[in-house]
């Protein structure tokens, strides 16, 4: 029984923090260099936080938790994020 979900499952948590649609942004994995649209990453909605992993190498690209009204966001697993803004 696996608990894998798609990047869309992190959309709510990410939208609390970022003012743009994160699930359509492209993220380069700091572990293996693969580029994936965030919607296609693998999401684990652990009760303590949301963990977003590379579908290729399992590196945690994004980790986010909300405790005591504060967001804790770890994006060390993202080497670079590309966001195409609407013109």
């Amino acid at each position: 029984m696996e608990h894998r979900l798609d990047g869309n499952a992190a959309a709510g948590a990410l939208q609390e923090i970022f003012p743009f649609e994160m699930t359509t942004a492209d993220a380069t994995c700091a572990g293996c260099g693969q580029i994936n649209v965030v919607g296609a990453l693998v999401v684990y909605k652990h009760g303590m936080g949301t963990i977003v992993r590379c579908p290729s190498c399992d590196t945690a690209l994004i980790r986010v938790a909300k405790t005591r009204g504060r967001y804790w966001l770890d994006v060390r697993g993202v080497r670079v994020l590309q966001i195409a803004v609407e013109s």
Partner: protein
Amino acid sequence: MERTTLLGRLTWQLGEVVATQVETARTKSLTIALPQWTGHRPGQHVDVRLTAEDGYQAERSYSIASAPGDQKQLTITVERLDDGEVSPYLVDELRVGDQMELRGPIGGYFVWEPSFGGPLFLVGGGSGIVPLMAMLRHRQASGSTIPTRLLYSSRSYEEIIYREELDHLSRSDATLEVSHTLTRVQPPDWIGYRRRIDQALLGEVAWPPEQHPLTYVCGPTQLVESVAAKLVALGYETARVKTERFGPTGGA
């Protein structure tokens, strides 16, 4: 890559249940009026939050079943899970006139609009049909003729959600084909498929890969992963297969 959108802040809104409709023995549609609703795109979901008197809270995500429209309301379809914490409340307890907290719309990835083109292949399992139904309803409302095929897996005939509406849509629209498979029990006169989606079934129903279809797969994690892998084995481009896994239980 897709262009992104600048979004407003995601805030909890208070809505009122204005209608409920039983779909199957275990699923019910709830229509909620939200004065601050700004609309949604087909495939998006909302987060629902329930609060008990002692402050205990539970949150779940539900796909929006209704097509975008200009009314300040939306419909979600909820499947009651026996060991669920939220779904039994939404299906068995909530009544017209009750209020509930929602936020959304959420998720710009698992979205289809006619401007995305096709041919369109939608694969759903159980309650995974919900976001696909929003896409089909929007497709119909906008008069789109983009060739579309829906493959819908259910356990039994009685458990096909939106069964009559899907019948009507496919009969009145030559550009939409609906295929059903019933995996556990079939009525005596059943002429549809009668097994879990396998490579052969997909080979018969899916668009040929040379047509570069756009595919959306939604439902229990196991079904979604199995179908996605088989589509890739058929020659589908992974970038054009979008998945929305509902988790091991298909939602709660």
